[in-house]
């Protein structure tokens, strides 16, 4: 009831928390895609020693436990840690760093699988056109863009619902690092289940809205293209 009221009245704090959730995860996904997509494509078109092992490790890292990532980032960014001088702990930047570490292997791994299939199809053509490696990677990334977008959305899904890492490195500070998931954890702790559930529905709605928006923008599932 209370939650419905907050949403209907567009409560300023709820909007702020929701926007911060979006800001942290979208930034993390954009950076992760910038690293993960070329990395996945590079792994697909290159042959080198231990390639299979690298790919196996990358796949395993998809299941990286967020709470461990949070702990490692925390230790690194703490004032008594190696990067302490930057004072990044308990800031949105720290949360973005943690989410990049969580999301990048997921995007890279899915990208690798998508590009590998595409590469087997394009292999002869791209070789016969005497393309450079960079050109091949660019072509494959462009032609696989729809499936790669799904990889990014999977990364977004993993990031937006994540609480273990951002709770540790963000600290759930009101007005600074509180996001939807940490707010849900806080309200559950206070026994305010109704409000926590309401926030949960906002989170689910947000995830759906972002996915629908991206699908509309990329014109997937449209008449002649599906």
């Amino acid at each position, binding site marked *: 009831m209370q939650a419905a009221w907050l949403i209907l009245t567009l409560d300023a704090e709820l909007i702020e928390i929701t926007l911060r959730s979006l800001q942290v995860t979208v930034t993390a996904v954009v950076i992760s895609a910038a690293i993960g997509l070329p990395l996945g494509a590079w792994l697909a078109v290159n042959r080198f020693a231990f390639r299979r092992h690298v790919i196996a490790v990358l796949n395993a890292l998809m299941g990286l436990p967020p709470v461990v990532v949070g702990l490692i980032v925390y230790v690194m960014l*703490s004032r008594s840690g190696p990067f302490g001088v930057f004072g990044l702990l*308990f800031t949105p930047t720290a949360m973005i760093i943690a989410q990049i570490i969580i999301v990048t292997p997921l995007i890279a791994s899915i990208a690798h699988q998508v590009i590998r299939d595409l590469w087997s199809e394009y292999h002869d053509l791209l070789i016969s056109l005497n393309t450079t490696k960079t050109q091949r990677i660019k072509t494959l990334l462009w032609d696989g863009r729809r499936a790669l977008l799904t990889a990014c959305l999977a990364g977004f899904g993993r990031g937006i619902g994540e609480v273990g890492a951002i709770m540790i490195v963000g600290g759930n500070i009101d007005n*600074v690092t509180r996001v939807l998931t940490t707010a849900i954890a806080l309200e559950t702790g206070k026994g305010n289940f109704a409000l926590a559930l309401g926030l949960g529905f906002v989170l689910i709605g947000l995830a759906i809205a972002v996915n629908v928006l991206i699908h509309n923008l990329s014109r997937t599932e449209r008449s002649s293209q599906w």
Partner: protein
Amino acid sequence: MRNLAIFLFSLLPAVAMADTLRMAVTTSFHNSGLSDILLPAVEEDTGITVQLLVVGTGQALRLGRAGDVDAVLVHARAAEEAFVGTGHATHRREIMYNDFVLIGPAEDPADIAGAESAADALRRIATSGAVFVSRGDESGTHQKELELWFAAGLAPDGFGPAYRSVGAGMGATLNTASGMNAYLLADRASWLNFGNKGDLALLYAGDPALFNQYAYLPVNPARHPHVPADLTERLENWLAGPRAKTLIDGYMLNGEPLFTHNARN
């Protein structure tokens, strides 16, 4: 892509770090709702924006030791004195107190409502074999609980499955106890503010051993040069001052006063 970058940039919070202080506080202080009353007043009077990290006392002190916060407001005297003793804080300033209470199933199978002291109440819980949920996270409440078991001449290690250490904050522990209909030790503020009481009820309170003193400890700037010593001092003076006294003493929940200001000037 460029539009996206602009969008993300516009979302970045305006970083006005001028007079910002990071303080680790206990869950009980925050869950009571008192922080929502005090912080706007602090900002109004001193211009300091206080960022709160809500954690257990043990973790709050560790954050202070690492220099990740500028001050702590906690409630575990022995641990606080050790913190000052090792030079992590310059001093310890008592601010206010409330009390711990024993919560349990309303039908009270261990009959602790009739106990003579807090230690006696715990002894009754132990002999009855009723389930007891412990914070188990080195928080101030957990340390107080261990102190009480010790005073009762009992060691919780030997209780077996009836003693459940959950290693969680006050709220999560209350939720667990509510689900299992178990006994637990809580601070009064968290209990009054808790929204999922179920069959639980406040069964025992009032023993002086359940006194719960909160103290403010500014992190030593000699160890962590980035700590703004002038701000931590300004905040301390405000917390010990008359406006804080009025707000803290006047804060009521369901008609009950929660905290008593007792800072000495």
